[in-house]
């Protein structure tokens, strides 16, 4: 079958690409759009390294067909913070040394942002349950949880609340 033409929005910018029906959103983000911040860990929806938002809802981009993105709004790690200034969540991950190899980090930051949008004042238990689908094999999670809790405490003052 011929390639499919898809028009979508990635991090707020209208984006077009051609894809095969079998390609995943993860494949297209990395290979066609060169948005390589989104990582492939397991490729089967277990590890969360490829976490993105689709129409604001957190999901694994390896479990989404690229053709499904037509008309949707995709959010990736490249849409968090900017080159001049890290987002609060990114800054807190650095301050707490909440990463070692870094493969899980983009997914964790995208997931944390999605969580704090729905629940700006999570308990540690909320954080651990919400992020259970983001696997990290380096840190043992403790520093990640501290970074997320710190980001949650810092964000309201950043927003001027």
């Amino acid at each position, binding site marked *: *079958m011929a390639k*499919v033409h898809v028009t979508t929005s990635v991090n707020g910018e209208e984006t077009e690409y051609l894809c095969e*029906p*079998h390609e*995943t959103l993860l494949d297209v983000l990395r290979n066609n759009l060169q948005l390589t911040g989104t990582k492939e860990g397991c*490729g*089967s*929806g*277990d590890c*969360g390294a490829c*976490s993105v938002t*689709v129409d604001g*809802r*957190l*999901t*694994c981009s*390896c*479990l*989404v*067909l690229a*053709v*499904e993105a*037509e008309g949707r709004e995709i959010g990736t790690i490249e849409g968090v913070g900017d080159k001049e200034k890290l987002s609060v969540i990114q800054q807190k991950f650095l301050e707490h040394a909440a990463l070692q190899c870094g493969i899980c980090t983009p997914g964790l930051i995208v*997931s944390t942002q*999605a*969580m704090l949008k729905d629940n700006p004042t999570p308990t540690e238990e909320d954080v651990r*349950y*919400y*992020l*259970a*689908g*983001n696997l990290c094999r380096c840190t043992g999670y403790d520093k990640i949880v501290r970074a997320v809790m710190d980001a949650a405490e810092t964000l309201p003052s950043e927003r001027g609340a």
Partner: protein
Amino acid sequence: MAVADYKAPSTVSEAVSLLASAQMKAKVMAGGTDLIIQSKSQTAEPLLVVDLKRIETMKDYQLTDEGLSLGPAMCCAEFTALEDVKAVYPGLTEAAYLIGSTQVQGRASVGGNLCNSSPAADTIPALIANGAQCVIEGPDGDRTVPVEDFVTGVGKNCLAANEILKRIVIPRPAPGTADAYLRFIPRTEMDIAVAGAGVSVTLDADGTCTAARVGIGAVAPTAMLVPAAAAALVGTKLDDTALEAAAKAASEASNPITDRRGTVEFRRHVVGVLVKRAAKIAQSRAQG
């Protein structure tokens, strides 16, 4: 299977026609969390994916005096956030909340969980406990199947190749009714049931159980309704003797296998314990 073609119809009838006229193997996709993995991991046989997520009636719901009518493809994250549904069917909401991670729940659906027809699917025992009916559309019209008869084997169900589960209908529980779902997993999150139990009980004013339904999962090729376990509860005040009898009936009805998640003996025992505990939770909810 390898996805070779993709269609996203806007009505169920259009989706049924696409299945009926497909020139290759065709499968419907709701969340795709099982289908996309299956399509990547097996043979190169070409596959047409018919995506149901552009069909509005596949993702909406109505909660009325009659009960719940659920679009089967609504994602679990949306479903578990429906406070009105949770107030009436807390056990079903719990079951949907147990499926995979936050990310998976952003895609996976109750209907997809049912149609994937895994023996360990969490929502199926909860749907059984609630007496859910499956409304299926095919080329010749609609038919309705009780959920306990929907799944026919491991990964198999009663849907013909050109049929689609278009609605899950659950009657509104009688006054004094509540449900609960419990599963056993060795972790606290992100795992597949070793055994599961959904229980619904109806209590009268003095706390006597007047009706019950018990569904068990992961302990047989399909999730199953256990009438003997329900019968052990009816007419009692869910005292220890009645709960033990229900547990024994569930254990005896089970037909588990030994695999890396548990042995036959363990599963038989645990499913009884889960029935007992779920019945207690349902009881306390029914007493409100």
